């Protein structure tokens, strides 16, 4: 087992290296640091001194890949200083001078506080809706719920958020429209975003789980269970659900690490100080250092998710052998 995990881990390294090179090309080769400095300092009428000064303050004044002036030509370069440091999670400072690493540590809990309940409640709602649809299959109940699902799917998530904020926050005044607090007080700020996240996901989610269950329902062991004389509900909840849990579980495991990244739109609409709104702010301020770090962090988390999926497959599904 440990051997297997170690091997999978080694496989992840070239992927991270690829991500790193890609972001390096995007952020430093497509546009030179000079271009970025001009953009930040405001286009025309910028003196070369100001550009040099900006670059020096942020450590962009080094050569890209090879510094022939220094003793150690590889270390004193932008690639080593800015990109390789990411591997040890040293994100450096943002273009406005703050420490990105501590910002991330501080903000990821708010993201998690909103993403985790959304995931769990959403999963429960989606699966129970899908099970009901399968239970009442080939009836008008199923047909109408499929139609409702398609309609729910066709509404942009922006409308769910705007509509929910308007209805619950402004007209009914049940919860505050936006904001965040620490500790137990946070709950009243979290209720609305979680509900909206669940509602906006139920259309596609329930449909997806429905196809999954329908595939399972056609299998032989289900027929056997029915032949034994079990009722349809017993068959569904005992046999089908249990066997369908494997793909559901592994599908969820992939996104678990990414929960830390939060949701860009939800967080910015509800002004929750998580990593999603952090990223949006960085995009709007054109803070390249933060966007670069978030790209790397996101892919690290995704790769961890892939690793966890592989491992959970071997744990949950006895048919899968380690190879």
């Amino acid at each position, binding site marked *: 087992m440990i051997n297997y995990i170690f091997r999978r881990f080694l496989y992840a390294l070239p992927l991270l290296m*690829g991500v790193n090179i890609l972001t390096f090309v995007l952020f430093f080769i497509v546009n030179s640091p000079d271009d970025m400095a001009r953009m930040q300092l405001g286009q025309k009428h910028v003196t070369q001194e100001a550009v040099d000064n900006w670059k020096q303050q942020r450590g962009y004044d080094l050569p890209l890949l090879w510094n022939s002036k220094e003793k150690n030509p590889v270390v004193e370069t932008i690639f080593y200083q800015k990109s390789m440091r990411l591997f040890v999670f040293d994100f450096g400072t943002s273009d406005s001078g703050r420490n990105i690493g501590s910002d991330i540590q501080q903000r990821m809990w708010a993201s998690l506080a909103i993403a985790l309940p959304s995931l769990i409640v959403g999963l429960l709602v989606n699966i129970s809706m899908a099970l009901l649809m399968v239970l009442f299959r080939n009836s008008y109940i199923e047909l109408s719920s499929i139609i409702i699902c398609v*309609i729910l799917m*066709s509404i942009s*998530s922006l409308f769910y958020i705007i509509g929910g904020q308007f209805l619950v926050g*402004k007209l009914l005044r049940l919860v505050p429209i936006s904001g965040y607090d620490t500790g137990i007080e946070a709950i009243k700020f979290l209720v609305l975003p979680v509900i909206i996240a669940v509602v906006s996901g139920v259309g596609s989610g329930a449909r997806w789980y429905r196809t999954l269950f329908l595939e399972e329902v056609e299998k032989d062991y289900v027929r056997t269970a029915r032949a034994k004389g079990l009722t349809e509900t017993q068959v569904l909840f005992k046999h089908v659900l249990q066997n369908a849990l494997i793909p559901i579980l592994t599908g969820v495991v992939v996104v678990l690490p990414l929960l830390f990244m939060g949701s860009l739109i939800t967080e910015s609409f509800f002004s929750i100080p998580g990593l999603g709104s952090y990223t949006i702010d960085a995009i709007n301020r054109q803070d390249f250092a933060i*966007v670069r770090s978030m*790209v790397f962090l*996101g*892919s690290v988390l995704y790769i961890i998710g892939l690793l966890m999926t592989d491992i959970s497959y071997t744990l949950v599904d006895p048919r899968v052998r380690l190879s």
Partner: protein
Amino acid sequence: MVILWTDALIYFLVVTVIFLSFYVVRKPQFKRPLTKIFHNKSGMVSLIFLIFFMMIGLFDSVHFKSNETHAKPIISVLDYWMTPLRTQGEKTYSAPFSTHLYNKEMVVLDNGSKVWRYPRLKYAGVYLDKPEQQKITDIVLKSGQGFLKGVVFCAMMIFGLFLLNRYYGAMSALNDWKQSPMALKLISSVVIMMIIGSFILVELSSYYHIFGTDKVGEDVFYQAIKSIRTGLVIGSLTTLIMLPLAIVFGIMAGFFRGWVDDVIQYLYTTLNSIPSVLLIAASILMVQVYMANHAENFTSLIIRADMRLLFLCLILGVTSWTGLCRLLRAETLKLREMEYVQAAQALGVQRSKILWRHILPNVMHIVLISVALDFSALVLAEAVLSYINIGVDPTTYSWGNMINGARLEMAREPVVWWSLTASFIFMFTLVLAANLFADCVSDAFDPRRV
């Protein structure tokens, strides 16, 4: 005539689709799924809606330089037709079908005295003396006019088709259709309803702002119509960019295996591991920097916005080919072990020929299904991306930009709801039609459901 980059690609896409549909109609293996689609009611109705949207998008993609003002702006054929809507702006917000402005102002009366009240709009219902009492009857009257015009137009069209059929037998191609009177009736009644409906809308919109006006007084109905092109461009051009990548890489990885497979798998896993929103954000930021530093290449506003739209499609295409590529790889891995492929190999058929003749046609159904499914997702994604400012250019008309501009207006009193409603209705119709059609396509082409 001015051909923008996206225009050129749209023309190319239209030509390709026409050729492809000729190819598909002739092939026997597509006959069953096509008849299945044709007999699917919701699928056909949504297809008509999609075609209607596409026509508007196409008319909006033929650009030329107008002589209106000294600046000679680049406008499209659709802009030309909608000139009154485009130019007749009010001062600021006004509600749908309203004859008065949203804000109170100091109004100078005929006798020189000044009153603090809601001023009349410049271009909506100007001919009414007492708008409060006459408005409803006028609206009913005008929609009746539009209805009549629509009925006359439809009657002329049907008569023309009838004559064509009588003298030239032009409808002989449609003889297959006649065998299914239900589908034909449904299609023609939906088409007629849509034509009449659009006549009513056109008639009304020339007398009123039917979706009101926005903050700077621009007609919201015009904005929503113009946004159709943006949505369609994002949905279709992205597919155009993504398909070659996905098909070539997916089939090659599955067929050649070995190091080719390893390299391609590495490529798509790496791309896939970056959360797509972040990759798009990073790329768009870089495009912004590039455009800011090479301002001389983007002389006019519309060319600049068009380039950004194209870049967005490019980036979306690069980030979204991985899913389809993985599916195609898995399918090709299965297909290459099939007897007919092995037989072709044993008979010494060239590899390129096997790929072209035996593998590609047999993965086409996956491609079709995934194109249909991706379209609506892309239209939805555009709105979200525009909201985070990494979508289309802020000057481009798009539903995302409309929502972005209008969402803070919900806090006003009374609520300014019409911009959001208009974008909601248009976007919802397009996405719902696309979703229903995609369901119908995947139902018809799915080999498991024969």
